[in-house]
């Protein structure tokens, strides 16, 4: 039985097509990631899988149950941790968990034991009787994860689980999630726009503008982009872009302030680049060559880096400059 199975899932909000026909499946016990910028449709897709949002078209099943026709069964089988906190700040950690246990019908005999074990799992056992109001952001997120696990869900949905947290807390949350996977075999479905987090996944789907543009394991995706990324810092980006096109036949654009392009064997290319640029009189302040990362995968499949996709219009101008140069 597939933990999550999605076919042609769509969501329209009036004129806006948030999700445009998404198709994928997740095996039991997998850690599956949805990678993409904000506004790509990640949260909407998760919303549909969690029965919070009604799909416009398509079908999806979670833990073997249809998300539209068997909503109650889906809800019983999933745990949710969202970006926005959904704890009651005026209750204690234990009271929040008990509330959850009652709503999810956790059998009375096991509640106490489960409560203790999830709190231990996330390292909050000593804070059971403390009011959530006194917790830090990281502690609240950990408590939400504990709560999401309390009823032993088949699939745990994490929407940007470590957003807004400091690196140390992010690391420890991921330790908990990994140990969870090892001990319970829970399927984890997460969305993120952090590249390093996406590396933890068994498989990733890259989503941009409401569609899945690539899917595979992190290594598979990186291998599909068999080129190095080269970034140049220069005072005349438009000139550099033009020169790259004319002399090397390379398509370059400005990403995150640097003239960026992909080329095979980047290390060998750079000396040739300097030689030619030196002749042309184009000053290069610095250069960087990197092996493909998931950011490059994103770049190659969508034409933008995640950060740029989020920055949105600011780079449009640069891109149009580059494009104009190429049309000549």
């Amino acid at each position, binding site marked *: 039985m597939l933990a999550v199975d999605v076919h042609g899932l769509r969501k329209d909000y009036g004129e806006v097509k948030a999700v445009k026909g998404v198709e994928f499946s997740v095996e039991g016990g997998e850690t599956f990631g949805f990678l993409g910028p904000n506004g790509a449709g990640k949260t909407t897709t998760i919303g549909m899988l969690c029965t919070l949002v009604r799909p416009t078209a398509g079908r999806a099943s979670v833990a073997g149950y249809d998300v539209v026709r068997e909503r109650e069964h889906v809800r019983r089988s999933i745990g949710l941790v969202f970006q926005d*906190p959904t704890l009651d700040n005026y209750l204690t950690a234990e009271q929040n968990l*008990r509330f959850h246990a009652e709503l999810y019908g956790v059998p009375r005999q096991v509640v106490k034991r489960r409560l203790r074990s999830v709190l231990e799992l996330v390292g909050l056992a000593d804070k059971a009787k403390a009011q959530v109001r006194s917790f830090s952001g990281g502690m609240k997120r950990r408590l939400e994860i504990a709560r999401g696990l309390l009823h032993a869900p088949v699939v745990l949905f994490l929407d940007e689980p470590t957003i807004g947290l400091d690196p140390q807390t992010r690391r420890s949350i991921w330790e908990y999630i990994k140990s969870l996977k090892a001990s319970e075999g829970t399927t984890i479905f997460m969305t993120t726009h952090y590249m390093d987090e996406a590396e933890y996944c068994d498989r990733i789907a890259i989503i941009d503008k409401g569609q899945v543009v690539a899917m595979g394991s992190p290594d598979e995706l990186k291998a599909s982009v068999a080129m190095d990324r080269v970034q140049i810092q220069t005072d005349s980006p438009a000139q550099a872009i033009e020169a790259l096109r004319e002399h090397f036949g390379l398509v370059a654009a400005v990403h995150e302030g640097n003239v960026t392009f992909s080329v095979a064997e980047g290390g060998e290319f750079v000396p040739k680049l300097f030689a030619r640029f030196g002749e042309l009189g184009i000053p290069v302040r610095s250069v960087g060559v990197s092996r493909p990362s998931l950011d490059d995968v994103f770049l190659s499949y969508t034409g933008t880096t995640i950060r740029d996709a989020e920055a949105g219009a600011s780079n449009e101008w640069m891109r149009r400059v580059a494009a104009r140069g190429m049309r000549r």
Partner: protein
Amino acid sequence: MASGAVHEARAVWVVLKREGIRFASDPLRAVVSVLQPLLFLFVLGSGLGSLVDFGHHLNLRTFLYPGAAAMSVLFTALFSAGSIVWDREFGFLREMLVAPVSRTSIVVGKCLGGALVASVQGVLMICISGLAGVPYDPALMFTVLGELLLLALTVTAFGMLVAAKIQQFQSFMAVTQMLVMPLFFLSGAMYPLSGLPAWLRALTRVDPLTYAVDPVRKAVFARLSAVPPALRARLVPGVTWDGWHVPVGVELGVVAAMAAAFVVVAALEFRRTG
């Protein structure tokens, strides 16, 4: 996993319990909610009391008491219902909406919780009723408490209906304040329902709060043996529909029917949410 009905009952219970915990953790709220009715009862009551002289050792405060008790219940119940808007703003509502329980159970739990919490206010008002000249008669106290509980349930359910449509807590408070004053003024809490001009009499009959205040006043006055029948008839004429004197049972029936209707519609509204 617990079976259907038991599971729903557990859900109702835990939502109810949460209302109780929240109320208990905020004693200031209870104090503030009882302050306004007390102000109304003792300041207005004593102040205006000099203008009104019933004679026969009957105080204006005693007359105003049912309205004051209803007022305390009104505010608390609305605040309880409004807390669901708070929950929506602060995300906790989503935790409830995504759980495998029917929305009806959540609404019922909230209404019962709000009603119970508002009844605590009622108890407070009953405790100080002696100061308003109301006799401490156990049967009377139970009757009044029961009637206030029913009112609390109705108002909480009504509040939930309003809350289902509203996104921000401030808007909720604004809307309910706008409604509460007219409802209160038209309920006969401050004046007898006899000798009113036709238009006012018609409005009082349409006001749901009238059917909650009148039984309490009737119950209180039934225990005031010192009041002569003529005065009692003038001060507590009851509600009449086209000449038919509406008995207490029917008045309470009206309130109960409204409670049921509000709960049902609120549940339907919440089923459609998110």
